Every structure is written in structure tokens, then in C-alpha cells.
């Protein structure tokens, strides 16, 4: 044998699994089987005292089989002994030994501890693999990243789980420049752990049940979460053990001996542990993040086997995270496409509206010219006659009537020609950048042409305008600018802000140093009356909203066309 050396509490796991011995009654009759001292243990060996101790400790089980054997019947007793934190499992087989001078009992004391431990290990592994399988099944049922993170952490910690008290997940950002704390789970104190584990011991839950309970419940682990949410680790910091594990794609159990700098020390102090499992979340060599796990409550040492299991689980978790992120990106792309489609529809409607307004504007100008001249003549002559007419002249009343009505029509005409006073204006505050982009979208199919640089100080600036009228004005200016520059690809826009004004610089490019000058001389070309009228209307609209168009120098290079328009104020 033997499992037992020196004393029962010290176990030699390398010994033989069974021992054969004979219990020989010391007396010919009337043997009391409740006392082992009534038997000789043959052969005598250095194991004999310990055999005796084992049998004595489990006398209740032993005496029954011993009595049976003495009566000529074989029997078996099974019993356990607690030894130094381990449970030793034994089988005692007893059988009669015929042919002996006196009745004896043959015994096999078989140590089943290793088998039992192996069986327990197998059961544990089955449980762990079952847990991973359930978690993977749960991954398949959701695309929500938060839910996936929660499943991962529950698998790491819930119940016996993968054996950890607390788990944390840090995810990498898109650029893989840093890891940021996303979620943590686990008790925040031994008391809380005691309550949870006590409940679990009363009503053990499967992983699926724990997951269902979580989904039905509310916020969990607020304290642990707040702890991890404050953590951000740059992936450039090679001295940081978490960054190093992530960059080297290597799992590691970090203990006090590996803590090299103050940052690491402070991180451990923050978590309140002195040992931590760090497992990178890797999917197809792409770093998704890291799982951190500790045993803050039980203080049980993290074993390599724990780390290995966590690594196995991390592979599935990484794929689930990557899938969720890809799905999120896909959803985002679908949203963008949907938005782009809506924008196209809206742009088309805006274009139609702007063109309608432009036509009305041009018509107003033609009408103004065609009506104003005859009115000037009619009213002018009437006024002339009135001035020279004696007060008692019978025609005076008629001429006064003509003069008054002409004046009235002229006033109406003033209103009519002011295009911005047309009915249907819908003024509101709009993001200047969005309006410009919409205009560009209406005019030009290539979203990257013309180049449009947006100063960060104008990003959220709004102007108070009628959207359609502003589009109309910008369309006229941009069309003209593209014509002068020899194509839309040659112009570029800079949108910036100067105090209370948004300023849009329009440049004709390096090859068009006289772009702005040519733009103005283009305005003087009366041969293309319609385009000129479009520009005139555009300028009228800009001025109505307190803006203007002009030439400005920028960066001392050459003159640039600019449009400025006040920000945010409602025009009264």
C-alpha cells in the first residue's frame, strides 16, 4: 500500500491503492467486533498501526462486515475520512478464511480517493464545459454587446462558475489604442458574497437560471461596475502588465512578484487584491479586450488550470464580442444608408422647392421691370398734371385717384419683388454645416467633391433662415463658382466661424488665383441675364438674413470668395 504514512493526516498519493491483511481474533470464541484490539493484524508491518486507526475511526461500518465475515459471509464497507482538508475514500472488503486453525477474516482495504478525485475532476470539467456550452448558446441568442459582456461575466463568476469571485471586462477601442473598462461583476464585500452564496447553496441554480434571473432583474454590481468604468489603459504602455498581456496576446496570472511599477501597484490597490488572472480576448488575432478575474473574497490562489479554462472560454467570448461589434457596425452602416436615402429624397424635394422659389424670384424681377416703368410714367404724369392744375379743376379728383392708386401698386410691387417676403417661408434654426452639405448634395453627385473643410468651432453653429431660400442662394453661388473655376472639382469650401458669423470661404484652387476676381466680373456679364438674376436673388436672400458675399484675403495667398451669415438669431 499504502496511502497512509506516518499518520492519517499526511497522505502519500504515490502509494499502492490496496492493502491486503488478515484480522485474526485473539480469542477462540466470543469475539467482540466493536473493538479492533481484539484482533491481530497479520502480517505485522509498519502499516499495521494506521490500518488499525482507519478501522477504529470507522468502526460502525467495519464491525458489520467483520461480523458477517466471522459468520462466513463476505461483506463490503465504504467509508470516508477527512484528512488535512482532503476526503479520503475507502472500501473494506472482508471475507471468511476457511482452513485456518482459528476463524480469521481476510481483508482488502482499497483506497478509492484518487478515483473519487478523478471522478470529481471529470464531473467538474463536465460542469465547466456545460457552463461554457450554455454561455455560447446564450451568445447566439443576442447581438447586444452589453448582454454578451454580462453573460461572459456571469459565466466567470456565477455560482461555482469558472471559479472566480469577480470578473471584469475591458474592451479595446476601434483604433486599438487603449483598453477601457466596460463591465464588472461580483460581490463588493464578503458580507454581500455571503448572502449571495448562501442563497445559491439553498437553491442551486443552473447557468441558464442565473441568466434568466439576471435578465428579469435590474441593475447589478453597481460598486464593482463603477470600479472598472473608471479604468482606461493605453495599449502603448508596455510596462503595464495588462497592456503587455494584451499586446503579447498571452494569458497570465499576475501576482505581487510581477508588479513592477507604481501604476501597477495602484491598480492592484484599487481592486483590493494581490493576484489577478488576465486573459486577452482575441478573435482571429484581433484584440477585442481583456478579461480580468480575481478571488477577492475567498482569497483562493488562481491556479494555471483556472487560467487555462478561462482562456478556453475567452476564445468563445471574443468571437461573440467581435460578432456583436461587427453587427453593430453593420447596423450603423444600414442606418447611414437609410439616412442617406432619406437625404436623397429630401434633397430632391428641396431642389424642386428651391428651383420653384428661384423661378418665382426671376418672375418677380421681370414683373417688376415690366410693371414699374409704365407705373412710373402713368403716376409721374398724373403728379405732374396735378401740380400744374388749379385747385378748382374738375379733373383733379380723377388725377389724384390715379396718383394714389399708382403709389399703392408700387408699394405692393416693392413687397412682391422682395423674394424673401414671399409666402411659405419656414424659418428655423439650422446647422450651417448641414445646410451646406445638403446644398452640395443637391448640386453634385460626388459626396467628396467639392472638398469641404469644416472648422471645429463651427460644428454646432446654427443660422436662422428659411431652409429652401438658403439652399437657393447657396446653389446659385456654388453653381456660379463651379462655372468660373472650370468645374466643381476645382473649388473647395472652408466653413469657419468668426464671432457671431459663420463664414464660408469658396476657393477656386491653386490654379485659379483670379477665381474671386473672375467671379465678380462674371456677375457683370449681362449677356447671361438669367444667371445674373439668380445671383441677384441669392445676394438678396443672404442680405435679408443679415449676411453678404464678398472677396476676402486669407492666409495672404490670394483673394477668396466668402459668404458670411449671422449665427442663431431670429430675424424680427
Amino acid at each position, binding site marked *: 500500500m499504502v496511502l497512509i504514512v506516518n499518520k492519517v493526516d499526511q497522505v502519500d498519493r504515490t502509494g499502492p491503492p490496496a492493502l491486503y491483511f488478515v484480522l485474526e481474533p485473539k480469542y477462540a470464541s466470543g469475539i467482540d467486533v466493536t473493538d479492533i484490539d481484539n484482533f491481530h493484524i497479520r502480517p505485522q508491518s509498519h502499516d499495521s498501526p494506521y490500518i488499525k486507526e482507519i478501522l477504529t475511526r470507522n468502526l460502525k461500518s467495519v464491525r458489520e462486515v467483520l461480523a458477517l465475515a466471522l459468520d462466513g459471509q463476505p461483506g463490503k464497507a465504504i467509508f470516508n475520512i477527512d484528512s488535512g482538508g482532503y476526503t479520503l475514500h475507502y472500501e473494506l472488503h472482508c471475507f471468511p478464511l476457511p482452513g485456518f486453525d482459528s476463524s480469521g477474516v481476510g481483508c482488502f482495504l482499497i483506497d478509492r480517493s484518487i478515483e473519487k478525485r478523478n471522478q470529481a475532476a471529470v464531473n467538474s470539467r463536465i460542469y465547466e464545459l456545460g457552463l461554457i456550452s450554455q454561455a455560447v448558446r446564450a451568445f447566439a441568442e443576442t447581438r447586444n454587446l452589453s448582454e454578451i459582456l454580462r453573460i461572459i461575466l456571469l459565466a466567470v463568476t456565477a455560482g461555482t462558475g469558472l471559479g472566480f469571485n469577480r470578473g471584469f471586462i475591458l474592451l479595446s477601442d476601434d483604433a486599438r489604442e487603449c483598453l477601457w473598462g466596460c463591465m464588472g461583476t461580483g460581490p463588493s464585500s464578503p458580507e454581500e458574497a455571503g448572502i449571495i452564496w448562501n442563497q445559491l447553496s439553498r437553491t442551486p441554480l443552473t447557468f441558464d437560471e442565473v441568466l434568466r434571473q439576471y435578465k428579469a432583474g435590474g441593475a447589478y454590481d453597481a460598486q464593482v461596475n463603477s470600479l472598472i468604468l473608471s479604468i482606461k489603459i493605453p495599449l502603448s504602455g508596455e510596462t503595464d502588465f495588462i497592456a503587455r498581456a494584451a499586446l503579447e496576446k498571452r494569458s497570465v496570472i499576475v501576482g505581487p512578484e510581477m508588479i513592477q511599477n507604481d501604476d501597477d501597484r495602484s491598480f492592484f490597490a484599487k481592486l483590493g487584491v494581490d493576484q489577478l488572472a488576465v486573459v486577452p480576448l482575441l478573435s482571429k488575432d484581433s484584440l477585442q479586450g481583456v478579461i480580468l478575474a480575481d478571488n477577492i473574497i475567498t482569497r483562493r490562489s488562481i491556479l494555471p488550470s483556472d487560467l487555462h479554462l478561462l482562456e478556453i472560454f475567452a476564445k468563445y467570448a471574443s468571437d461573440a464580442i467581435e460578432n456583436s461589434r461587427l453587427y453593430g457596425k453593420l447596423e450603423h452602416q444600414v442606418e447611414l444608408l437609410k439616412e442617406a436615402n432619406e437625404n436623397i429624397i429630401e434633397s430632391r424635394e428641396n431642389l424642386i422647392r428651391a428651383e420653384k422659389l428661384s423661378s418665382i424670384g426671376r418672375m418677380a*424681377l421681370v414683373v417688376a*421691370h415690366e410693371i414699374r416703368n409704365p407705373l*412710373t*410714367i*402713368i403716376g409721374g404724369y398724373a*403728379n405732374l398734371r396735378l401740380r400744374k392744375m388749379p385747385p378748382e379743376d374738375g379733373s383733379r379728383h380723377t388725377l389724384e385717384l390715379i396718383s394714389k392708386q399708382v403709389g399703392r401698386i*408700387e408699394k405692393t410691387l416693392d413687397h412682391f*419683388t422682395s423674394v424673401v417676403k414671399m409666402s411659405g417661408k419656414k424659418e428655423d434654426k439650422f446647422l450651417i454645416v448641414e445646410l451646406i452639405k445638403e446644398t452640395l448634395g443637391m448640386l453634385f453627385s460626388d459626396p467628396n467633391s467639392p472638398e469641404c473643410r469644416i472648422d471645429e468651432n463651427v460644428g454646432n453653429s446654427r443660422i436662422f433662415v428659411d431652409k429652401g431660400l438658403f439652399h437657393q442662394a447657396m446653389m446659385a453661388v456654388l453653381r456660379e463658382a463651379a462655372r468660373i473655376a472650370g468645374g466643381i472639382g476645382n473649388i473647395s469650401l472652408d466653413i469657419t466661424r468668426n464671432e457671431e458669423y459663420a463664414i464660408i470661404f469658396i476657393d477656386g484652387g491653386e490654379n485659379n488665383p483670379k477665381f474671386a476676381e473672375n467671379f465678380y466680373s462674371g*456677375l457683370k456679364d*449681362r449677356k447671361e441675364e438669367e444667371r445674373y438674376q439668380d445671383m441677384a436673388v441669392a445676394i438678396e436672400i443672404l442680405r435679408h438674413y443679415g449676411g453678404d458675399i464678398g472677396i476676402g484675403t486669407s492666409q495672404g495667398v490670394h483673394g477668396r470668395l466668402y459668404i458670411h451669415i449671422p449665427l442663431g438669431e431670429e430675424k424680427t
Partner: protein
Amino acid sequence: MKNILIIDDEEGIRGLYEIEFQSEGFQAHSVSSGREALRYFEENRPVDLVILDIKMDDMNGLDVLEELRSKTVGVPVILNSAYSTYKNNFTSWLADAYLVKSSDLSELKEKVKELLTI
């Protein structure tokens, strides 16, 4: 007596302005086109102020203005148009004043007197 040249392709306007400004004590002459106006100046006929329409058939008033500015220095020009939008044309800045046509000529007459410092 100051000489005013009225350039307008509308006969009714020319007649009205001539009567009005003559009654105000000016010598008022009129021509019906831009080219006619340029010839008028080439003949060195006396002109102290020009009232100039913009939209005319043969030659645009703004072109006439550019020509006048390149040849004749110091003659005040009042652009007088049915269009208010020509104000946005930068050539119009070469004029001394820009007035939209109206049956009420009092503003025009005031501007003429102002420019002639009467």
C-alpha cells in the same frame, strides 16, 4: 443752367423726366439708348449729370456707366432702374446714386440737386 442727360429706352419716362427737370430749372436732354448717349458725349455736348436706366435693349446701362467712367471724369451718374437687384452688381457702385423708379419723383429730384450741390 445745369445740363441733365436722361438715358432711357422708355419714351414715356424720357418725356416725363424732361418736363419735370425743365420745370425745376434744368436743361434736360434725353437719349433712348446707350450708344446714343456715348455719341452725345463724344460730341462734347455739355452734361452736368446723367440719369441712366439699366435694362435697355442695345446696351446695358451698367456698360454705359463703365464707358463713361473710363472716358469722362467727374460727371455724376444716377442709376435709375425698375430693378432693385442691380444694386448687388458691383459695377453699380461706380454710380453716384442708385434709385428705383417711382411715380413719385421727389426723391430723384432731391438726389439731382444734392449731386449738383444746388
